[in-house]
């Protein structure tokens, strides 16, 4: 099967093409879209800063950047109210953390392994957590958090709460037993959860088409009688609309949903991956439909934004990135005594 735009154009299932309304209380559509744009820009600038600091050896280990996929986390989380709702994701978690409103300073300090980091320097890139923001990580083992997210949904149902769980994972995780076991459980127990497969098309260096029996993952949801859709993950408004619909269903009917957001990562799997398994042309094609550019163009067209405003937002995001780095630099190393803290309560 060909590469390039594969999957991006399809909108099988129930995802509406263009029906985006602001859910921000009292906010206008312009304000809502500006906020989406700002969040995507923040992720972009934060990740660029992370890459830079990684290069300066301020950050080490596995560092999986989210650049290119911003529309998925931002559009999806914008459909949530994190007072009641929860987010769980895998190791490529910076974007989701920022979309959940986590403090960029605490995140950068975490990447630095510093005491002021959101996980006190113990978690690093793959393990961003903020319980107050209902962001429950940041899991390093492929697919291992999918049952855990399902368990969070069980609690919502048990407590008769109004919340919903968004569970993000990649195309690599979808073949793990934990995914399939979770979908079955969510269905038989009617749990309020939305499974979002961010299909960035490569499980590390493996093109998903080489290792998957189907290329439309929504079929996997259907095999558990869970409604599923495959949709354009580069368009933040489309993502938002699809997730909002699924989340509403979860809240009202306590029914799980499955969404495959077709997207693309611009960088390698991790910092050490040269990504030679794909062509420059393919990368260029996706960059031409960059999620930030798409939204920017839409807003310019509808006069919800001008270039000056965009530049101002962008400058603000860059400043936040710089401040985060400064904050991390100034944060002390964790004390050696902290080693034995948090092992058991």
């Amino acid at each position: 099967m060909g590469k390039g735009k594969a999957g991006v154009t399809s909108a099988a299932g129930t995802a509406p093409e263009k029906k985006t309304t602001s859910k921000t209380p009292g906010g206008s559509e312009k304000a809502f879209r500006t906020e989406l744009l700002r969040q995507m820009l923040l992720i972009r600038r934060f990740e660029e800063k992370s890459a830079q600091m990684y290069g300066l050896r301020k950050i080490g280990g596995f560092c999986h950047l989210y650049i290119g996929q911003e529309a998925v986390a931002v559009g999806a989380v914008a459909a949530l109210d994190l007072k009641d709702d929860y987010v769980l994701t895998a190791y490529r978690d910076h974007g989701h953390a920022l979309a959940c409103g986590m403090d960029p300073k605490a995140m950068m300090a975490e990447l630095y392994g510093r005491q002021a980091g959101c996980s006190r320097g113990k978690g690093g890139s793959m393990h961003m957590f903020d319980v107050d923001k209902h962001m429950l990580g940041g899991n390093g083992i492929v697919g291992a958090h999918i049952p855990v997210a399902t368990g969070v949904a069980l609690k919502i149902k048990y407590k008769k709460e109004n919340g919903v769980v968004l569970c993000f994972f990649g195309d690599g995780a979808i073949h793990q037993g934990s995914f399939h076991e979770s979908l079955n459980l969510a269905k038989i127990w009617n749990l309020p959860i939305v499974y979002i497969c961010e299909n960035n098309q490569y499980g590390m260096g493996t093109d998903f088409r080489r290792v998957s029996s189907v290329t439309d993952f929504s079929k996997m949801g259907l095999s558990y009688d869970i409604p599923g859709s495959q949709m354009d993950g580069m368009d933040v408004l489309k993502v938002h609309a699809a997730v909002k619909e699924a989340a509403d269903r979860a809240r009202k009917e306590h029914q799980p949903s499955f969404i495959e957001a077709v997207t693309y990562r611009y960088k390698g799997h991790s910092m050490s991956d040269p990504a030679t398994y794909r062509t420059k042309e393919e990368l260029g094609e996706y960059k031409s439909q960059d999620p930030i550019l798409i939204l920017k163009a839409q807003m310019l067209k509808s006069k919800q934004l001008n270039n000056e405003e965009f530049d101002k937002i962008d400058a603000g995001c860059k400043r936040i990135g710089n401040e985060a780095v400064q904050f991390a630099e100034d944060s002390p190393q964790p004390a050696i005594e902290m080693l034995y803290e948090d092992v058991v309560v």
Partner: protein
Amino acid sequence: MAEQVLMLALSPTMEEGTIVTWHKKEGDSVAQSDIICEVETDKATMEYEAVNEGTLLKILVAEGGKAKVGEPIAVVGEPGEDISGMLKEAEQKAEPAAQAPGASEPAASPESAALQVEAAPAAGPTGAAVTTPSAPQVPAGQLKASPLARKMATEHSIDMRVLRGSGPAGRIVKRDIEKALRQVASYGPAAAVGVQGPIAPAFIPSAAGPTASGKDERIPVSGIRKIIAQRLAESKFSAPHYYLRIDVDAGEMMAARQRLNARLPKDPAGKVSPNAFLIKFVSETLKKYPVVNSSWQTDEILRFGKIDIALAVAQEDGLITPVVRGCGSKGIVQIDRELKNLIDKVRSNKLTPEEYSGATFTISSLGTSGILEFTAIINPPGSAILAVGRIHKAPVVGDDGTIGVRSQMMLTLSCDHRVIDGAVGAAFLSDLKAFIEYPIDLLY
């Protein structure tokens, strides 16, 4: 973590000590080996070296006050540490310590140092290795020793209670036993200066008289000296010794030695010594009399499977008994080379305990000191020791009634009667004489 400083036995017989002077006052910092106070024992005033480190938080026994061995005299810890619990505990501990085990074996013992809790290693990365932070304290009075040290002590009949352990919290370890063995050997059971080497400088009389002051001096008996005393007494008083003496013509042996040495003129190892000949003759005789190569083990007699013969050798600080192993299967030259190698190690202080212990038979010679004959004390675990006198020219009446001048040597065999009956001992000695006088008999 605060620790109690306990009264230690600073003399082997001390049961109680009086604090003469405190060299540290409360609040002073204390490092290991600092003299913290002077203690008057039953014998002398001794310096008390700190084994604890930290700050002297509390003096429990003031100057002039007494404390029994094992009782706390002070508390050392971190400044500002709460030690009220420990002080209460200290009061209670004073009681049982007073009734330390073995009234006749005065509560002596550095092992009460075991009461001092080892500072628990901080859990966490500062500790080099993972260590159980809460290792249980060894109960007071219980000996602390490594398994190896215990085994070695048993093998060499060393009473560990009199040793001061150099390991953590007074644990007795291999090197402590080795040290004790060296010193035991120095004053070894043969109680004699060996055939080799100079007389130890310590034995050279001083011009000033027996003591420097001219008055009586009391020299504290070290724990090691005490072991020696115990071992000698144990051997002498528990093994019923009897002695057999025989006059031997050493002429043929010396002639054989001369012939052998003439054949080995350029051997860098030097001339073969008479001792190598003696060891060979003894080992051949032992083959015929395995009962002489045995050990009394209370419920049984251990007949050794090998012939390991020790020779008493002088060294600077006394005497040691290197053992030539497996003599039964070795020739004279090999025995001589091994013996020389062992003696070299004695000279350079490198002899290991394995090399000077466990002899099945011992030879002691005072020939170079001019002694014609003497009796030696059996060196356990063996059951016999051969005392060799000086080879000297003497008139001898031959079988034919004529008098000739011969090279004579007096041999005295000390036997443990529990193992070796008189007739057996006599037969052994008689055969040994025959071997020495007619070496060719070895081949028959």
